């Protein structure tokens, strides 16, 4: 556990340094100016440099100091998290992709040949339960209710796409 938190601190500091360098680097492409006549890039560069410094300080302290652990230990995972991660991020991404009018057309075309029940087969299981598909009914109802007021406007494209992902 100890070695792992140390690694985590080091990885975190590397990430911070990377972001800091990137921010400062991009910031230099804007006009920085002087203190008397500050350009758009002045403060971003300052933030980036400070971030890099903080990251360096973290890297140094991760070697010397014991990490402070005041978080309660997380409950062990019951299942591989990848499926959940994929579904959560995929749901949002699909909202964006299918929310596009072209996405809607595609969806309507696909849906035409299917019985409505079939639409909701794949479940996004947050709880690691593999038999969730059957129990999705309340959610569908909620989704349908939510769709009623919004459905009249142009927003329904996105909503429908979303509902598809809820399945």
């Amino acid at each position, binding site marked *: 556990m100890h070695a792992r*938190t140390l690694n*985590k*601190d080091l*990885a*975190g500091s590397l990430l911070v340094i990377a972001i*800091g360098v990137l921010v400062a680097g*991009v*910031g230099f492409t*804007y*006009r920085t100016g002087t203190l*008397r006549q*500050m*350009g*758009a*890039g002045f*403060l*971003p560069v300052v*933030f*980036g440099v400070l*971030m890099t410094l*903080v*990251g360096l300080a*973290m890297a140094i*302290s991760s070697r*010397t*100091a014991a*990490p*402070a*652990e*005041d*978080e*309660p230990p997380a*409950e062990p*995972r*019951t299942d591989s998290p990848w499926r*959940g991660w994929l579904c*959560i*991020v995929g*749901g*949002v*991404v699909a*909202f*964006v992709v299918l*929310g*596009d009018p072209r996405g809607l057309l595609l969806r309507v075309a696909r849906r035409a040949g299917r019985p409505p029940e079939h639409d909701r087969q794949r*479940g*996004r*299981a*947050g709880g690691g*339960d593999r038999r*969730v598909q059957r*129990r999705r009914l309340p*959610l569908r109802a909620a*989704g349908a209710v939510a769709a009623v007021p919004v459905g009249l406007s*142009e*927003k329904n494209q*996105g*909503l429908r796409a*979303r509902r598809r992902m*809820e399945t």
Partner: protein
Amino acid sequence: MSQSLMDLWYGFGVALDPHNFMWSVFGVLIGNLIGVLPGMGALTTISMLLPLTYVIAPVPAILMLAGIFYGSQYGGAIGAILLNLPSHPPHAVTCLDGYPMTLKGRGGAALGITMMASFFAASVGIAVMIFLSPLLVQIAFKFGPAEICAIMLLGLLAGATMSRGSPLKGLAMTLFGLVCGAVGTDVISGTMRYTFGKTELADGVELGALCMGLFGIADFLVHVNRMKVKPISAKMSMKDMRPTRAELRQAFWPMIRGTAVGTLFGAMPGTGPTITTFIAYAIERKIAKDPSRFGKGAIEGVASPEASSHSKTQVDFIPTMSLGIPGDAVMALLLGALIIKGIQPGPQLITEHPDIFWGLVASFWIGNLLLVVLNVPLIGMWVRLLRVPYKYLYPAALFFICIGVYTTKNSLFDVGEVAIFGILGAVFLSLGFPVSPIVLGFVLGPMLEENFRRAMLLSHGELRVFVDSPISAGFLLACSALLLVQVVAHVRGARRRAGAGGVVAALAE
């Protein structure tokens, strides 16, 4: 004094206006409802409901957001006491003694005490707010850009270093938030910064998208397959909520002490409610005749932290409203909502928008009263809500997040931002970074930059201006004192090495 009372009377008029009142009730109800749900803290709740406020007028919007805030805060206590599930970090302390009380069959009494403590503490906090804010405003009018910069720096530093976990990590996240705030068109020169050629980013990152990514999606990602619904045996009815006379007597002084702690710390910018509750709990344990009772269901351990967190919540509004400096991420969100509405926070807010300020103050009282009225009959329903399985809860929340962000500007790009900030937030969280300083930096960033550049223009590029003015010099002194305390705590912690708890433990001593 009498002027304040007159203003308060006016505020009640604003808050009781049917339209405003309706939104206030709605906010409290929905905040309580969502706050009860496992895993939904005040931050998640507010960020999810933020888009709702975009369509309504500023006064009802802020009343509703404030209602959501304290509603969800109270709702979180229910989960903490009955299920040992702190959905909002400050409630971690409430769990320590609240859950053992539930195991002993006194969970209802713990909830009753929580309700009384929060109402009492909130009332005191509101009273302090009424009389302190106008005073603070008079001082604040003497502030120039340099002073505002200095106090913002203090707020940012305090928010970064006093949150949980490593102060360096907090600092890194604050800086990251400042960078996020810099995205978009530079107000002074019109240069596009960090937009990567995307015109959608010209207006900057969307506040709602940032928050929902960081507090919604990131949280879900981290908790995937980790949360289990705990079976709940306690049946709760109105009768159970009445504490016995002995319990009341036992909880009375802790409640007052907790309120005092919360009020004191609320006035300090950046001290989060988590630390406040920890300190309140530590004090109770220190002065108790029999400290061994704590952790086994001592009612003092529930009353004092809850009182402190609620009085702190109210007092926190003072710097937010009168100076425009938010104390923590929740306040930063409220401030962000005001800015979206085109209202510039700062000392002029009370005089320019008295309806917002005094209406808000009055609505606190009404809202807290509503909480009591709502929770007594509805407690049975809340208990049932605690059993909502995550597999329904999270997809539903995800659904509302997407819809909420999308409808804000009808922009699918913003929904993509949610995904990106969600992934970023999850990476940060899993590496042990606190994410709430990001919001603080994000909201304060543009204001800080504007004031810093203005100060530099006025002083012709002389950084000495920050030391020349006694007010800003004082704030900078406080900043360096804060850093010094952190360094000392760090060195001491490194020397002890074995000691866990880090800064929080050092502070609570």
